[in-house]
């Protein structure tokens, strides 16, 4: 056991899935030509004024309601002043003293099944900056302001996490929450969800928090886990050598797995916040809040409970299958259509997930539709095919050979359940393997079991795996014992 305890707090930037920017009517769509979605407001032209997007406010409130937070009926915007080329106004419009979402919490289920609550300190509305492009501009930096003004909520947690695993579990839970309530597309590779990680260590039993460092802009769960583990090691090494930790911002390079200090100027953190005179306070009525609360869909935690109950799934299965909306919807469709939730769960978590992972596909890109998987399961249940054949059919459907019924028909994979036909096959096998049959009859009970497998194998070979295993077992048993 390590003598050290890790303490982690997170700040998460969640890009809101609005159509337009927080303060202008320019589109937030990604992938457009540089600077084609930058309005006069986004370009910070003198004389322009921001007009707040209703949907951004609604989404922030929905988030607050989903984490059981206090929704502040009165919130206000401030200016955070700093100079950077991708911030045309010279300040970021954000919230500080009066954020729209107050304290809340998120409950996690960890891999060992235990539960943990991570407290949310607050969440506030703010605007994203543009993008600085450092390549392809021969030593200069290119500025694309399409992202400037995209609405964000910054979610700030309390330092409640005690390991990289817990931090990642929280990050996943948050990802699943914001996508479930439809306020974020969850595309981490596009930067829709970005994590800043505050890490410190202290000796076990110590109450006082150690000096923390902040590692910024981690946009994958894997990088986040790597960055935290590396940072914990680095801090422990320094402290064990008698050194001390410098409070600083660090950058993590996912490709090399190395982090380094950003060495930003000492005065960079003096943002001289002040209330933004261009924006009035945001006031929310009780009716608005109730309406938004009623508009919330089923939350991941509620879905998890329902899955466990409605489909009699284990906690583990329910947790995996309810983790994101696409997987949940797929599972529910397969379970309903096939009428067997347990088999649906097994196929999705087994064969399907393995293939998706192998091809680095998400479930929304799955070539096997939910109705097709349901059909496959139905054929398995009505004994049209055996589970071994089912894997073949799955493979064929995956590769676009058609629906399960079409594949079974085209490849002639129907299980043989005709007892007359099976009886003939059994008779033939016993006749062809008379010596083994004699040996079986002479053997004692203990050895018979193993010897029996030989005959089953022969039957499966003869039928190319299509014989109904249960019937074959019965017929063989009868023939051998007579």
């Amino acid at each position: 056991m390590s003598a050290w305890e890790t303490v982690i707090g997170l700040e998460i930037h969640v890009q809101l899935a609005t159509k337009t920017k927080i303060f202008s009517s320019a589109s937030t769509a990604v992938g457009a030509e540089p600077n084609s979605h930058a309005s006069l407001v986004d370009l910070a032209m003198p004389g322009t004024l921001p007009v707040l997007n209703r949907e951004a406010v609604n989404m922030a409130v929905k988030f607050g309601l989903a984490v059981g937070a206090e929704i502040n009926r009165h919130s206000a915007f401030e200016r955070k002043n700093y100079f950077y080329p991708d911030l045309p106004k010279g300040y970021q419009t954000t919230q500080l003293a009066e954020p729209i979402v107050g304290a809340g919490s998120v409950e996690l289920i960890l891999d060992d099944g235990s539960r943990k609550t991570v407290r949310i300190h607050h969440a506030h509305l703010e605007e994203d900056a543009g993008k600085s492009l450092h390549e392809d501009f021969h030593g200069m930096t290119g500025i694309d302001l399409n992202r400037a003004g995209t609405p964000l909520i910054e979610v700030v947690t309390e330092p409640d996490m005690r390991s990289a695993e817990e931090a990642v579990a929280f990050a996943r839970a948050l990802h699943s929450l914001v996508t479930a309530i439809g306020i974020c597309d969850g595309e981490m590779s596009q930067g829709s969800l970005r994590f800043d990680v505050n890490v410190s260590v202290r000796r076990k039993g110590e109450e006082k928090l150690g000096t923390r460092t902040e590692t910024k802009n981690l946009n994958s769960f894997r990088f986040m886990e790597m960055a935290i583990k590396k940072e914990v090691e680095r801090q422990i090494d320094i402290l064990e050598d008698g050194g001390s930790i410098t409070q600083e911002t660090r950058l993590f390079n996912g490709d090399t797995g190395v982090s380094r200090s950003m060495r930003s100027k000492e005065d960079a953190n003096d943002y001289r916040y002040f209330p933004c005179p261009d924006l009035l306070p945001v006031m929310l009525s009780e009716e608005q809040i109730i309406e938004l609360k009623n508009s919330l869909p089923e939350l991941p935690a509620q879905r998890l409970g329902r899955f466990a109950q409605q489909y009699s799934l284990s906690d583990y299965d329910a947790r995996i299958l309810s983790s994101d909306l696409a997987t949940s919807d797929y599972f529910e469709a397969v379970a309903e259509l096939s009428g067997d939730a347990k088999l649906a769960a097994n196929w999705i978590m087994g064969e399907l997930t393995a293939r998706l992972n192998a091809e680095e596909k998400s479930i929304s890109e799955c070539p096997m539709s939910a109705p097709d998987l349901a059909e496959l399961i139905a054929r398995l249940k009505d004994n049209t095919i055996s589970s071994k054949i089912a894997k073949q059919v799955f493979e064929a459907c995956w590769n676009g050979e058609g629906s399960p019924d079409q594949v079974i028909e085209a490849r002639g994979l129907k299980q043989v359940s005709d007892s007359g036909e099976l009886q003939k096959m059994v008779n033939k096998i016993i006749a062809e393997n008379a010596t083994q049959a004699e040996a079986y009859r002479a053997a004692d009970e203990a050895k018979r079991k193993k010897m029996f497998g030989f005959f089953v194998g022969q039957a499966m070979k003869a039928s190319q795996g299509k014989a109904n295993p249960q019937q074959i077992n019965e017929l063989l048993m009868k023939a051998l014992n007579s």
Partner: protein
Amino acid sequence: MAIDQDTVLKVAHLARLHVSAEQSQALAGRLSDILNMVDELQQAEVDNITPLAHPLDVSQPLREDLVQPADLRDRVLPLAPASEGNCFLVPRVIE
């Protein structure tokens, strides 16, 4: 509350303003006067008054989330000292 010249120079730097040593001395005096006035205001009895984020006592009007064309590249890129490939160009900023 008094503001010294160093503070003036620091704030000027943060705001990217060029302030000479001479100016900073004069400014220190004037800013101190302003802060002294604020100190006086601080003594006002406000315990029973709700803080005010804005002098207008109305709520922020909200805009519907509807896209309007915002492509101003042909007009704004030529205004920049340098541009290329639809991007504004600035001196390299990465550390």
